[in-house]
């Protein structure tokens, strides 16, 4: 009896599709993410001196990240909305805790030691900040009034400043843009956006005053990398050489001479795009950008199909932040943005960011697969 009724309900195109649907997995998005992650292994094999250990470790993390994505996809989006404030509050509390422990330990502190693994509250806040602001704005009619804008601005500034103090400029930037993304999609007026841009630009000298020495160095290096080729300009010069020498078709897989000879530091982490560009050339770069754009387009589509304000705002902001990730990383590697510590999403070696990213995609899938009424 039961089996019969199930068959009638779903009419599965395939076994896999059936399973994925039951898991609340969005198939196009899933395929995009899977392709990118597989690509990551291909590149890491090359940058990590063909060391299988590196792949195994990354494989473990990616597996864990996909698992978390699946779990979150299963959760009803209503639950995300319900716990937005609580999760945000916990995130802020942990950020303060980390900061205080850093003060005691006298040095940069970004994580909490939780027995067997380290937990970075700044990773959690990357998702809970847009959740919080989406929740807050969804309570009121859109576009938001100036009072709500002020409140939302506070909610963005608090975690951003806490993370910038760690100091982790890259993550602070991502958190700020995820919050700003929500405001943009909530429909703040173009005039207001222009005003903010002008204000921020005029605040630059003040921001400069508050920067740490090494952060200033990075900006100066970005402006003139040749001034200090051995130290701070080293990354940018070497990565430009690697990318430029790749040409249109690249030197082929495992053909990177620059990372082979270790000219290129951090070739597996923040500067992995340089190796990719050297091995696969402009054509490979365009392919990767298209893959990223497809993922972003699917996410924006999911956002546009979402059925309540909270889901829309959250989904669109997550999509937007993903793009910021891509843009900031590639921008710094090709030398049009200053070097901030942002990895290339889904590709760079290293654990924490991929888990957070896929958690975000899990929420997107949850939003897409839990519609209260289907518009068929």
């Amino acid at each position, binding site marked *: 009896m039961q089996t019969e009724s199930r068959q009638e309900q779903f009419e599965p195109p395939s076994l896999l599709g059936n399973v994925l649907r039951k898991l609340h997995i969005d198939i196009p998005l899933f395929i995009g993410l899977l392709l990118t992650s597989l690509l990551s292994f291909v590149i890491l094999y090359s940058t990590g001196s063909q060391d299988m250990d590196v792949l195994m470790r990354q494989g473990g993390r990616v597996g864990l990240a996909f698992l978390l994505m699946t779990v979150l996809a299963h959760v009803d989006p209503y639950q995300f909305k319900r716990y937005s404030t609580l999760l945000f509050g916990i995130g802020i509390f942990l950020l303060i805790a980390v900061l205080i422990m850093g003060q005691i330990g006298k040095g940069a502190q970004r994580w909490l030691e939780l027995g067997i693994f380290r937990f970075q509250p700044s990773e959690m806040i990357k998702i809970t900040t847009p959740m919080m602001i989406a929740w807050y704005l969804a309570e*009121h*009619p*859109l*576009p938001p009034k100036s009072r709500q804008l002020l409140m939302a601005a506070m909610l963005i500034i608090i975690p951003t400043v806490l993370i910038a103090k760690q100091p982790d400029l890259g993550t602070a930037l991502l958190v700020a843009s995820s919050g700003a993304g929500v405001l*943009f*999609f909530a*429909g703040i007026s173009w005039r207001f956006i222009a005003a903010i841009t002008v204000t921020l630009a005029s605040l630059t000298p003040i921001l400069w005053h508050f920067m740490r020495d090494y952060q200033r160095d990075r900006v100066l290096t970005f402006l003139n990398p040749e001034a*200090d*080729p*051995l*130290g*701070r300009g*080293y990354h940018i010069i070497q990565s*430009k*050489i*690697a*990318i*430029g*020498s*790749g*040409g*249109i078709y690249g030197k082929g897989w495992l053909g990177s*001479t*620059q990372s*082979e*000879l*270790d*000219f290129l530091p951090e070739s597996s982490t923040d500067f992995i795009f340089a190796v990719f*560009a050297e091995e696969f*050339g*402009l054509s490979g*770069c*365009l392919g990767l*950008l298209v893959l990223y*754009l497809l993922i*972003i*387009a699917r996410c*924006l589509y999911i*956002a*546009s199909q979402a059925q309540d*304000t909270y889901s*829309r705002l959250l989904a*669109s902001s997550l999509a*937007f932040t993903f*793009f910021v990730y891509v*843009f900031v990383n*590639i*921008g710094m590697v*090709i*030398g*049009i943005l200053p070097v901030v510590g942002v990895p290339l999403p889904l590709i760079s070696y290293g654990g924490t960011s991929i888990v957070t990213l896929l958690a975000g995609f899990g929420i997107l899938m949850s939003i897409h697969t839990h519609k209260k009424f289907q518009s068929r």
Partner: protein
Amino acid sequence: MYVIKDHSVESRLFRNRIVAAFIAIMLLTSGLIVRLIYLQIVGHEHYSSLAKDNSIKIVPLVPNRGMIYDRHGKVLAENRPSYSLELIPEQIIDMDDTLSRLQKLLAIPDEKIEQYQKLRKRQKRFVSTPLLLSMNDEELAKFAVVRPYFTGVDIHTRLVRHYPYADLAAHVIGYVSRINEAELKELPLAEYRGSTHIGKLGVESSYETELHGKTGYAEIETNVQARLLNTLNEVSPDPGANLYLTLDIDLQKMAYDALGTFNGAVVAIDVKTGGVLVFVSRPGFDPNPFVVGIANDAYQALQASENQPLYNRALRGLYPPGSTIKPFIALAGLEYEAVNPQQRLNCPGFYQLPGVSHQYRDWKKGGHGSVDLSRAITESCDVYFYRLASMLGIDHMHSFLQKFGFGEKSGIDLIGEKTGLLPSREWKRAQKNQAWYPGETLITGIGQGYHQVTPLQLARATATLANQGKVVTPFLVNKIVDAHGTRPGPEIHKDVIPLKSENVNTVIEGMINVVHSAHGTAKGINTNIDYQIAGKTGTAQVLGIKQNAKYNEQDIDFKFRDHALFIAFAPANDPKIAVAVVVENGGHGGSVAAPIAGQVIKQFLQENDAN
């Protein structure tokens, strides 16, 4: 207040924003693509020529580390050429095989291989990385024979840090050793690109920046095998600065030898400047093995040794000051006008607090009879100081002693100095949550109880007393000399303790009599000198003695015997040098510690007169 939402307006707005965002994303992505086209098509040829067959490499040029000299220009730390076995990972096809063959050939211990593996991971693959430093002739010969069978392995000449005086001054000079992973995270990467060693201890560590110098670089053109073809541009390194210490290595050697088989510390300070002349901690250790990587068992042996050679007693050793505190307590008594110098007191051999049966005993059974302040110092009468302490009270004693630098770091230019412990009411409340007891005031008056000093603090306080209250701050580096000129060592700030000079002179008179009168406790060192020494002996208890028990030197284990202390300065009328000596388990200050100080003073003043 609830405002009704207009869903159709919201939806339209949101759709518009999605479209706007997508357009913005496309535009920004186009920006990336334009830049990629610029790099990969327009700039392709330029970047290819940089990257392809002939690559431009930026190689660090490591500066030579600065030398360290003593006050007379004798070399304390130098860079000696030595042969090292080096591997270029890029040119070695099977690294594990090569290493195991080399290990068999030259009998290299496993830990060296491990060390090398760690070092190799940090270096670029074309950089020659040392496996063995300071090879001996046998190793050189063995390798020379089979050299053709090892591509990518070669013998290089490297400069290796060498300390000619070995264990004599290891605690002051310190040593350099391989940069470890923790240090690597803290170091400025650009400055240490190419450097393998870093100062770990002593002056080598506290003046690391000055000694290291500034790394230069060369842009070189190389072929695929990383062979040098052409140097395009070179920025020479700035060699590290040479340091000239205030230390007198001959005097140091004399003091070190004078300690004989005892463990202990000797610190001597130039009273006029604060320059440290002698800084001995015995036993010392040979820093040279640390430079090339000390073998594990040798290091374990140093660590486990009962005599603790790695422990810097002069800087970090904590000892009760014993009777060496008495001149300072006496001066406090005079300054606070608790006593006048002529006032006499009968010493029956013990002291009792009113209403308490406990007897605080004098070291001399039967007592000293009638003593005034000067004589109390000379004979080290405990009863006099029990009484003086109880009149002063702990608060006055604490604030007075603090001015002489007790309970705080001296500010010497070495890392890791201990503060010692100068007890106070507040300290006891905070640390033990207990009130201060009157009995504790008494024993603090004779330098027992909680009070703990380092030999360096003791020498500093003695120098300050000799200097009539002008506070002396000890320092080691006199001049820093580099290509740009000569700089003085650390900045010294000069405080002055307001003291009445007749009070200071009364105390000094008592201290002169310690050495120069018939009943002085250190009268043994007054022969054959044409100047006067002001001193004070001290004995620091290692074991507590029960109320009715008797301390008998012969009966107890050596390691529980009292520590012998002695402080002194000379010439008493125009002080030039101040000395503090601590001899662990030496017994009496007068018989063991004082002669060491006497010899140091003698040699220094002789030399001083000769100049």
